[in-house]
């Protein structure tokens, strides 16, 4: 199980914090979560249980089999599952990011080509966090298709290619096409993936201008991309960006935890890390 990218983790965290109303005032334990996921009468209870098991990083031997079962139900419902199966499936895929879900490999790969684009998007993140290299070819072919209008899906797919670490010619060729994209978050995601796969500083040159975007949303996304790479030469860009410190700290966490690009600056891992911690202390 990989940790997932900070940017992906951020958006996931946003999604995961939206606890359904069923949870209000009623803390539950693992047994109760498993019971709720297994029952079929109350869809909201199942939805909450899936979220809970991921959030709590459940290691119970029944957790994965029950989550897999929920995905199998979704997949057997065909192209247009009912809304309850669909939303449960989305939460199951999100939960799996936090778990060792290698036993659900087949289900995740099937969701990757689901008719529903939200399911494809979540499955892409789950496949990347699980390190499912079989998904690389599927994602490349989807990114090479004609219809590329779903920005969130494309970002998730591009990010996944970077996280999966396969730097083959086909992947690079697919990604390079997006490095000049006019949509800033898609351009940023592809530059992030290229930096992850090649560590070539030429893919970092656009980041300062991306960070000058007038859109707060874009600046946040770009910061999280730099954090996902751990790009040490970006330390000052991140620290000085006109964005809230919370996001800068998330980005800098990435630099401290997996520093990259510092060798040409003559720095050791340890020196790079200490420099980042110092910058983080200033932003608290």
């Amino acid at each position, binding site marked *: 199980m990989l940790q997932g990218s900070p940017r992906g983790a951020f958006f996931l965290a946003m999604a995961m914090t939206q606890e359904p109303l069923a949870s209000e005032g009623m803390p539950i334990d693992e047994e109760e979560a498993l019971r709720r996921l297994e029952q079929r009468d109350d869809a909201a209870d199942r939805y909450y249980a899936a979220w809970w098991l991921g959030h709590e990083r459940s290691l119970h031997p029944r957790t994965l089999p029950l989550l897999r079962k929920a995905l199998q139900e979704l997949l057997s419902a065909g192209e247009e599952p009912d809304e309850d199966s669909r939303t449960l499936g989305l939460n199951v895929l999100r939960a799996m990011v936090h778990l060792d879900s290698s036993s659900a490999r087949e289900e995740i790969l099937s969701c990757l080509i689901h008719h529903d684009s939200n399911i494809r998007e979540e499955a892409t993140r789950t496949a990347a966090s699980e390190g499912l290299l079989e998904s690389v070819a599927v994602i490349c072919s989807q990114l090479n298709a004609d219809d590329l209008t779903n920005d969130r899906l494309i970002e998730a797919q591009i990010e996944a290619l970077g996280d999966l670490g396969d730097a083959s010619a086909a992947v690079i060729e697919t990604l390079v096409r997006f490095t000049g994209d006019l949509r800033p978050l898609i351009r940023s995601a592809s530059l992030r993936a290229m930096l992850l796969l090649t560590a070539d500083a030429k893919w970092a040159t656009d980041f300062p201008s991306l960070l000058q975007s007038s859109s*707060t949303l874009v600046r946040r996304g770009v910061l999280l991309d730099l954090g996902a790479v751990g790009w040490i030469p970006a330390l000052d860009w991140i620290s000085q960006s006109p964005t809230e410190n919370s996001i800068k*700290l998330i980005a800098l*966490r990435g630099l401290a*935890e997996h520093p990259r690009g510092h060798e040409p600056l003559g720095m050791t891992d340890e020196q790079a890390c*200490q420099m980042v911690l110092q910058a*983080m202390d200033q932003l608290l």
Partner: protein
Amino acid sequence: MTSGSELAQAIASVDAATTSAELMQATAALVRCKHMGAIPKLLEVIGFNNPALAGIAFSGLVALGPEAAPQILDRLDPQNYGARAWSVRALAEIADSCALDALIEALCNDIGPSVRRAAAKGLGNLRLRGTAMEISSQRQRCVHALNHGTHDSEWVVRYSCCASLERLLSTGAFEDQAIQSLRERTGRTERVKVVRLRASKALQRLKAG
């Protein structure tokens, strides 16, 4: 410090601003007044959910120094935790010990992680005042709250507590419980690597690894 009429004019310019650029300019001018009467307006601007703008207002509050702290304390916005975070950061930076109770309360009970993070920073930074016994007791309260904060659900709050414990312990007597809290953050119970890194750095600097 500028006169009352210049202050009134600067405040009116902030109110009259219609674009983000105008607002930034007017706020910077208000900051340059260096006047206690600017505090309510600076605190209002801090709540506009614009980080660059809030940064200007924040620096203005900090520049006013300890005299500004009581007004900031009185005006902590209970509805807007983004604004509260900036105010608490200003209190942390000003470092006047009158903020002690508010910072402890914020670290232990505020719903906003960014508020708790800033409160933790402040507790490592306060200039404590009084007799030796009073200072020691205030310091104990800071250490106690920070120890508690090292178990916060948010990594960034735990991180901030580690940084502040290092700061507090480097300027006075060691507290066994605080060293224990830092050691715990370097271990397997801490899921977030950067918190482990920060706690290790604190212990190394304190030569207590």
